[in-house]
């Protein structure tokens, strides 16, 4: 076991996969000698060379499209989009091409592609370095969407993503890159895409979250346990598509109450799907309305610190939402 940060775990996953499979390569803006603007690929260019760690032109759709083409040719590309906010020019390639290729070729052509992108607010990134974009892509069958919240999961899930035969969008909570630390085994392991993780078992209510909000929710759950004696179950969804419905439904069967926390805009965000699932398939297990704690419906995260803080849920606002729901 080694203590490491989220970003160190991600780098280790890529390093191990590059060493394991000569078909794995990385491309994106500044991923080469610079090692990425967040240093996710630091040292990999020196270790594996410019043929495998490839600085791309500053053009996101082509980063994805080159990855699709290489994946069609049975390589294993890891494409980095520098900020999730910049993924939109590649939307057509992701949604119309990568996601539909296996279906539209009747299973002849597959796209084993990973697209990594740091997402989320709280780093003074303003409107265009803070966005949460997962809900655009969780609506698209054919894609997998993964968001880790611990170093252990970050490494294990990214390795699974590289080995998956489908296009995987791997969104990384950039505020947690160095803030989140945890134990990572030195032995080889993977974490399967799909299953959610029970981060904290509890009896009184269920809180569903992912990424930075899962990390904050664990802090908030300990706080309300300590201060209010509320025993909250925390489920880190980890893989948003395909969604682990069973773990969600089983948790609420036990607790009877559900809160979904996400830092994306509230309306049509991922929490809406969790709430709809519970209304549809878990109605008789509910003792309270399903609640959502999310960002307000404004276009993106503002820059100035008070507005940025106002925008994002944090351990205190999550704790308050837990107390409210526990008291229903």
């Amino acid at each position: 076991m080694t203590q490491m940060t989220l970003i160190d775990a991600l780098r280790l996953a890529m390093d191990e996969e590059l060493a394991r499979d000569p078909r794995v390569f990385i491309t994106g803006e500044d991923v080469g000698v610079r090692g990425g603007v967040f240093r996710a690929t630091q040292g990999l260019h020196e270790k594996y060379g410019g043929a495998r760690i490839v600085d791309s032109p500053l053009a996101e759709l082509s980063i994805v499209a080159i990855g699709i083409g290489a994946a069609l040719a049975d390589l294993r590309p890891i494409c980095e989009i520098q900020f999730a906010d910049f993924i939109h020019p590649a939307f057509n390639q992701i949604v119309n091409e990568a996601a539909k290729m296996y279906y539209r070729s009747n299973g002849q052509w597959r796209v084993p592609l990973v697209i990594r992108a740091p997402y989320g607010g709280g780093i003074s990134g303003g409107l265009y370095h803070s966005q949460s974009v997962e809900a655009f892509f969780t609506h698209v069958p054919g894609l997998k969407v993964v968001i880790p919240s611990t170093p252990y999961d970050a490494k294990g899930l990214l390795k699974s993503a590289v080995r998956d035969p489908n296009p995987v969008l791997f969104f990384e909570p950039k505020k947690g890159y160095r803030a989140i630390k945890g134990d990572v085994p030195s032995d080889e392991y993977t974490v399967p895409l799909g299953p959610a993780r029970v981060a904290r078992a509890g009896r009184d209510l269920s809180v569903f979250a992912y990424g930075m909000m899962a990390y904050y929710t664990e802090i908030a759950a300990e706080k309300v346990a300590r201060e209010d004696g509320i025993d909250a179950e925390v489920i880190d969804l980890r893989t948003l598509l395909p969604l682990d419905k069973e773990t969600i439904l089983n948790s609420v069967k036990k607790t009877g109450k559900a809160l979904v926390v996400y830092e994306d805009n509230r309306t049509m965000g991922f929490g809406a799907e969790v709430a709809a699932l519970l209304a549809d398939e878990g109605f008789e297990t509910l003792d309270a309305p399903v609640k959502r704690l999310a960002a307000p419906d404004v276009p993106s995260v503002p820059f100035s610190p008070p507005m940025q803080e106002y925008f994002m849920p944090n351990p205190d606002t999550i704790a308050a939402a837990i107390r409210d729901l526990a008291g229903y």
Partner: protein
Amino acid sequence: MTTNAVARASAQLSEQALLEMFWIMLLSRRLDERAWALHRQGKIAFHISGMGHEAAQVGAAFTLNRGIDYVHPYYRDLALMLALGITPTDFMMSLFAKKGEYSSGARQMPSHFGYKPLNVVSGSAPVATQVPQAAGLAFAIKYRQQTGLVDPQDATQPRVAFTSLGEGSTSQGEWHEGMNWAGVHKLPLVCLVQNNIYAISVPVASQMAVANVADRAAAYGVTGVVVDGNDVLAVYDVMTEAVERAYNGGGATLVEAKTYRPVPHSSDDDDRSYRTREEVEAWKEKGPINRFRRTLEAEGILTPEILEDYEIRARAEVDHAQANAEAAPYPEGEDALGDVYAPADEVQP
């Protein structure tokens, strides 16, 4: 051939190869004509035509290591696909949307070509999406060669990625980004632009301010060539150079084949609203099949007997393909649910 054509690659083509090229162009035309008729009879829902483009496509196909080199085509590439190896029955199964259709299981509209056994990548409808992907295929070819996974001279491996599109599609950013990668990374890519003057109704002057698509090649640091797209042997010549350049590490080529679409854009279009009948008729006379026929007749390669035999065979093959497709069952409704995710490999490398 004429004496000054000796240095041309096409001068090396055998009579048999020349006749095969002509046969595929003719078969494509007769199949295409039948598709229009079937649509007018209400038997099929949609057809998008490759008429007039047969020389550009067949001239190109014959320069590739067919079945091995990567091909990422577009929706007019019927003659290209026939030259690569799909059958008239394959195409008819697409038109009739029948169970087991070769490219997509009839999930896609007709002419959204793709067939893994021939290394032809499945295409979509948003134009130019295939160009940066083809650059990615070319990147993979170069990657495997550079990292020692394959021998660059191994002809059992793909050595070039070929993609094609219309001139209107070159207005897309995706085309630009793909060509830029091809130039920056000196990729083994051949991009064939079949310039037929109209993007549905919009003429080329409303797409770009330069005279030729190929003029843009200089901006990407790739070789650009303009060729008469109605002259199959001229296309074969420039494509041979382009493919050799890719095989030998010389980078990408942008080939612009100037041609014309003598029919509406698709079965849902009416071209009388944007061009005169005189213009269309004038082009038909210059069309690629008439032109190649005259060349082969003048050389004594295509005799009236062979031509008559080809016409009879083409009609028989198209009839047979139509009968096969009409007799075939539709997919089940539930077939809509398959192939969303590929299953994991059983053995990890």
